[in-house]
């Protein structure tokens, strides 16, 4: 079929709200945009295991430790669903991992901030997973089928992530003055990075328009950010914690909060690789991958030997 006809079929599907599936024809740029977005999303899940992993051995109780382990394991699973979805577009798993390790592929800016106290684990579950959920709920209706289906699974699992974080914050906020101070300090440090992880303002993200046209994104960064603020502020109020934004104010007319401008210079700096933990995160990933090489080699050798023996390893 000629390209013009194929393009028409593709456009009609998008218009109608049908999903695009792996074997369907799609514009080269649609494919490229999605490979970039899905692989970066996958990398974020995987790198995102590191800041929380930092506290697994120091969780304050067995219950908290169990929960944190399960959460971090979920994030690993999310990474795998997403790598699978990206692979259906014709990029190999190895290539994606190489792109992450060489610094060519990005991951969410938020994971380049350190987790200094136990309260940070609460703030991450509440705010970082909370912000990610806003984005992921929208992506359940993204136009690429495998990506949308991965999001449905992920969203089901995310709700416990946010609740366990909020629970940690609740205990600290209602605890001793020192504990409350820890909780407030974590909120102070994670608030702005959480707003920024939803991406640059609409003015600064030239690709958003095309992504919205292709129904990859159903809402713009600023729209998702507004929703996140509107939902989160009342949750902070219940904790008795203060959002670190002097411009934060209820706006009756728009039925939402007005809020201040994030430090976008800091955001772009972190994205460029100059955040507090960029180097540490990447080197931890590379080291884990290299240290696991012998396991992959041994498993491959075993499978090869078994299939030679006729045990039909595959």
């Amino acid at each position, binding site marked *: 079929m000629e390209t013009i006809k194929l393009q028409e079929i593709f456009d009609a599907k998008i218009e109608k709200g049908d999903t695009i599936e792996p074997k369907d024809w799609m514009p080269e740029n649609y494919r490229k945009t999605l490979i970039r977005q899905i692989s970066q999303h996958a990398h974020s899940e995987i790198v995102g295991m590191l800041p929380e992993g930092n506290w697994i051995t120091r969780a304050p109780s067995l219950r908290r430790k169990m929960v944190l382990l399960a959460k971090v394991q979920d994030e690993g*699973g999310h990474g795998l669903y997403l790598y*699978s979805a990206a692979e259906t577009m014709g990029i*190999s798993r190895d290539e994606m991992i190489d792109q992450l390790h060489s610094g060519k592929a990005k991951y969410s800016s938020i994971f380049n901030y350190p987790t200094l106290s136990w309260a940070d684990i609460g703030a991450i579950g509440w705010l970082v997973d909370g912000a990610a959920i806003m984005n992921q709920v929208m992506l359940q209706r993204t136009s690429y089928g495998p990506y949308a289906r991965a999001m449905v699974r992920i969203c089901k699992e995310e709700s416990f992530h946010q609740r366990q974080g909020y629970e940690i914050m609740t205990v600290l906020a209602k605890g001793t003055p020192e504990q409350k101070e820890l909780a407030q300090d974590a909120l102070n440090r994670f608030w702005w990075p959480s707003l920024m992880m939803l991406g640059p303002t609409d003015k600064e993200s030239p690709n958003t328009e095309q992504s919205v046209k292709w129904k990859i994104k159903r809402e713009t960064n600023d729209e998702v950010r507004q929703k996140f603020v509107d939902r989160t502020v009342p949750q902070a109020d219940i904790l008795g914690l203060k959002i670190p934004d002097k411009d934060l104010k209820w706006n009756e007319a728009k039925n939402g909060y007005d809020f201040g401008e994030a430090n976008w210079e800091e955001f772009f700096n972190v994205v460029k690789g100059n955040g507090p933990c960029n180097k540490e995160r990447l080197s931890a990933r590379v080291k884990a991958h290299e240290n696991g090489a012998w396991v992959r080699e041994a498993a491959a050798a075993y*499978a090869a030997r078994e299939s030679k023996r006729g045990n*039909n390893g595959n």
Partner: protein
Amino acid sequence: MTKENQGILWEVFVQTKPGLPHKHCGSVHAPDKEMAIQNARDVYTRRSEGTSIWVVPAEAITASSPEDMGSFFEPANDKVYRHPTFYHVPEGVKYL
């Protein structure tokens, strides 16, 4: 990129309850079938979502091609008599 050291790609099908069909839910990499099924368990049934798992080498799956979708499924289009609603039945008749 020629190297591929993640093992073979397997498509994963999970049955969520006894009696229900297995449904595709994603894929995993693994060097052999035993590891494939263990990986599939860890990745896709962490909340007891399954009573049975199938893993199939992705290579072994043959699929209809989306470009021919229209003509491929066309033979069924004019056979409305394959549906019960095609038939007229007098009012009041039960259990039919």
